[in-house]
């Protein structure tokens, strides 16, 4: 056993047993961050804060929510919203954060694509991030089921139907997933478990992994410049802070993070108090009714683009296209053949590729909500084809790119 001196402060006492000083140095004070990064790099912290809000508000909601098909709707809309003190606040924070977290994830993803932050040594950052995106999707979907509203029920019906895999007609699989022929008590219990236990656990593990993947390659910067972190950190520690290309995570970058977070929170709470309904489909305020189909069934806004890749095609090709859209982002680091780590606007045809992808996904999102008729289906079909073609031509487009 190690030898222990008498400690003169709590910090010292803990340090002897937990090495908290080393921990703080490695995780915060000497975790080096490039100096030339803009506020888009603070989205990670914004996401961490939003996830924190989701967990805390979720715990409060969990105290009163009833995972029972007869009680769920009223436990949310009456007990939590009206009887529990400030239940409405937790509920709106939870619902708005669930939606806003996807907006920030998309900004975070497109930032990564724009600056080439997935390349050369940073592949695992990208892949772990995509795993987080998929887990958040499962978390959001399972949570959407819980109020047992009309759209919860029918979205649950439609999404679980996808598992019959088109012409394969694996209806047994669908029923196995639901635990019944239609969404019912077993279905609600399962999604409740997934939402409050299994998915959060997976997400927290993946957040740990995502942070871990950053440690060795370090975060990218605005110019895609390869920084010698060892060399630059020495300069910083020697007091040449203005010359050094790196800064400490804490407090240097954290101070910028917190400012961005504070602006984000103003936007977030504005939505919570005065525009909470943007994130909540009015149809979901009708209790689930298995005998009445809503006129239009559509997912929440953050799934609309992938829904629209499924919808304009015939059954089987649609499913293949949908599957393609779900996994293709994972392969981005390997499909981009260019040697450059640089912002898209300094690269060759990739700069057009980036903006076309962004606009195409917004078009898909809009069409995904509109009824699939007339001009909207045509635009949706074209946008879905463009999406697939973009990914197929990516290796060709980037291979020819000259080094910058």
């Amino acid at each position: 056993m190690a030898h222990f001196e008498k400690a003169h402060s709590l910090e010292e006492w803990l340090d002897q047993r937990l090495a908290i000083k080393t921990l703080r140095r490695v995780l915060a004070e000497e975790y080096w961050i490039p100096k030339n990064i803009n506020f888009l790099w603070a989205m990670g912290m914004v996401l961490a804060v939003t996830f924190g809000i989701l967990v805390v508000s979720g715990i409060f909601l969990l105290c009163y929510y009833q995972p029972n098909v007869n009680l769920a709707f009223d436990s949310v809309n009456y007990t939590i919203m009206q009887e529990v003190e400030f239940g409405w606040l937790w509920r709106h924070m939870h619902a708005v954060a669930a939606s806003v977290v996807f907006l920030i994830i998309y900004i975070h993803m497109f930032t990564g694509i724009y600056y080439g932050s997935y390349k050369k040594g940073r592949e695992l950052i990208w892949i772990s991030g995509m795993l987080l995106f998929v887990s958040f999707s499962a978390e959001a979907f399972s949570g959407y089921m819980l109020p047992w509203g009309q759209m919860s029920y029918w979205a649950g019906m439609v999404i679980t139907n996808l598992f019959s895999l088109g012409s394969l007609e694996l209806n047994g699989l669908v029923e196995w997933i639901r635990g019944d022929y239609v969404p019912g008590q077993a279905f609600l219990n399962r999604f409740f478990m997934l939402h409050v236990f299994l998915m959060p656990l997976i997400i927290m593990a993946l957040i740990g992994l995502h942070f871990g993947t950053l440690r060795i390659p370090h975060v990218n910067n605005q110019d895609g410049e390869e920084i010698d972190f060892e060399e630059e950190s020495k300069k910083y520690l020697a007091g040449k802070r203005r010359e050094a290309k790196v800064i400490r995570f804490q407090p240097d970058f954290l101070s910028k993070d917190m400012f961005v977070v504070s602006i984000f929170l103003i936007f977030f709470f504005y939505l919570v108090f005065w525009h909470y309904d943007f994130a909540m489909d009015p149809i979901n305020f009708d209790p689930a009714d298995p005998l009445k189909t809503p006129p239009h069934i559509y997912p929440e806004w953050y799934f609309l683009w992938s829904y629209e890749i499924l919808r304009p095609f015939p059954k089987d090709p649609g499913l293949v296209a949908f599957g393609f859209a779900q996994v293709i982002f994972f392969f981005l680091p390997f499909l981009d053949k260019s040697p450059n780590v640089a912002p898209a606007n300094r690269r060759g045809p990739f700069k057009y590729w980036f903006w076309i992808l962004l606009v195409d996904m917004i078009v898909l999102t809009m069409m995904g909500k509109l009824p699939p008729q007339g001009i909207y289906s045509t635009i949706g079909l074209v946008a879905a084809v463009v999406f697939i073609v973009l990914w197929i031509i990516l290796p060709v487009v980037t291979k020819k790119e000259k080094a910058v």
Partner: protein
Amino acid sequence: MKELKILAVVVFFTLLTYWGIEPYAHSVMHKHVESEGFTYKDLKPLSKKGDPAKGAQTFMNAGCIGCHGVKSQGMPAPMDPNAAAASFGVNPPDLSNAGAVYDERFLADLIANPEHALMVEHKFSKMGRAFPMPAFYGTGGDKEQEIADIVAYLKSIAKKPEEITPKEAFETACGRCHAMHYDKWTQIGERPKFKHEIDAIKFQEKVVDYQDKLTKYLGKLPPDLSMYIRSRGEHYLSTFMENPQNLLPGTAMPRVGVNKESAEKVIEYMADVGDSKRHERDSVGKIVMIYLFIFAFLAYLWKQSIWKELH
């Protein structure tokens, strides 16, 4: 400056996406119905000035109280709700406050031609069924004058419009067909507190019995309205009340015929029940915003103080 440019790009694409999936998609999926301001222009205006005293007589002679109660005048309903529903399909309304809640033109037209005023021809005469309320053919004098008198009478006995509470407006206009279980309202009245479970069960039996009759009469049990303020929103509710056929062609729901003030009260009541914390939301929101602006200001100062040594 560069960061502001980046922010502008992010905000632009965010707003574009928002516009597409909210206001735009909404405008395509839901037909916009303009409010007619509760003017009921398709109904004939009253041409004569009514006399309440004569109206009271005509009201009695015409046999209105054979079906309707006027509790405020000591005339209880001739039948309890369940018995009435057995005869008519629905419990005929108590008319104590009809003069305050309903529009004058609507009342006059309702007396002369109930099916038309209520816009339920498609469910009755056109289907070969008789509407339970017979049209008023006059008691021998000038029919238009008599109708004007009855309307004047109903107005004279009703509470003043400003004294009608939001809940009373709802009960009169909607409460015989729609439940509001977040406020313990059933189609046969408010659910009392019972000391013995057997009484609660007996009451529930009456409610279910009434609902069954209503379902038979309308083809479908009218929905509970507890959450309608959030699932439909004010504009939909208001225009729907004004003319249900506009938004849901073929629906069994009759035109309600309320005046503008009562419509606003009905909506206020629905908001009180379905969105009871809306005032608290606003006041708490302001405090949280003040806190956050201070927080943002301090965060900015902290960032400046640290970064001045870095640049």
